[in-house]
């Protein structure tokens, strides 16, 4: 069933365009990678604030409010460009273990954000300016950092594992 979906996607006109165009893939990939700097830079800074390492004198709620729009925007661009790259060669992408691992870890990173928002993030007012951030916030930060390192490593791995064009 899923294999048929991949084949259908591969056969679409759009997928063919992504594959055959000389510029589509390099341009989309460049946007994907450059947006990563925006996203990762902000994510690392936010995680470091959660760990109580940087921006210690700023209210946690304020840092979250300032960072979130940029994080969401960067994430959205990466999802769109990522989907476009996938469309270019869905069967090859899916055939690599790195791709599947990356997708699982992306889902886990999303879950981490949801859990944070539903638990300690909701009570942010209670620890807004605490010199030492709560353990749960620190765990969320470490999980996020580890997952993003692995997501990037897996993303890089896909490029090496893909069969040559």
């Amino acid at each position: 069933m899923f294999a048929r979906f991949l084949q259908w996607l591969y056969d679409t006109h759009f997928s063919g365009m992504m594959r055959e165009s000389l510029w589509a893939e390099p341009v989309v990939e460049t946007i994907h990678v450059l947006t990563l700097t925006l996203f990762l830079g902000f994510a690392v800074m936010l995680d470091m604030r959660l760990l109580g390492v940087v921006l210690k004198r700023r209210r946690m709620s304020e840092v979250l409010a300032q960072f979130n729009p940029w994080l969401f925007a960067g994430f959205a661009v990466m999802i769109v460009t990522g989907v476009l790259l996938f469309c270019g060669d869905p069967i090859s992408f899916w055939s690599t273990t790195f791709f599947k691992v990356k997708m699982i870890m992306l889902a886990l990173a999303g879950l981490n954000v949801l859990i944070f928002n539903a638990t300690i993030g909701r009570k942010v007012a209670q620890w807004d300016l605490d010199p030492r951030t709560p353990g749960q916030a620190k765990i969320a930060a470490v999980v996020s950092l580890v997952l993003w390192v692995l997501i990037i490593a897996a993303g890089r791995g896909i490029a090496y594992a893909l069969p040559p064009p």
Partner: protein
Amino acid sequence: MIRTLLLGFCQWCNNSFWGHAIRESTWLFPFVEIFHLLALGILGGTILILNLRLMRLAFKTESTAELAAEVKPWMIGSLIVMLVSGFLLFSTEAVKMYGNWGFQLKMLFLLLATIYTFTIHRRITLADDGRFGPALRIFVAVVSLLLWSGVGLGGRALGYITTSVSSVSMLLLR
């Protein structure tokens, strides 16, 4: 003269033991590249944060100088990781890179961006917020973003350029 020196340096890197080791190993290159990318994320992030502040697009309540002091160790640390990991990656195909215009562009922008960041950009970010006008601050931020984007685009481009060995040997003969 400079060309001969540069090419000699590239050949020395190419033949170095680390150049050999990373080239021969299946996993060392991707391993080093991951550090390069992670540091890129942090470096890009800190530069963006500062420039967004200069342009008053984010962190408006924070003083620019305070923010600059806060992100400085991260910026310098990630730049060092990028330079070291980049040098290691370069050493695996240094002679090829010598003739690669994407790489040449990247090095030019890297030099300009680094000098700019630690001189003009640093001066403006560390100054009191009222000292320089908003137009100048936006201009300084835009120049910084353009210079660093140049480094990134050159880096992307070099992977797509295939330098033929013959064109490199032509340079050797000249």
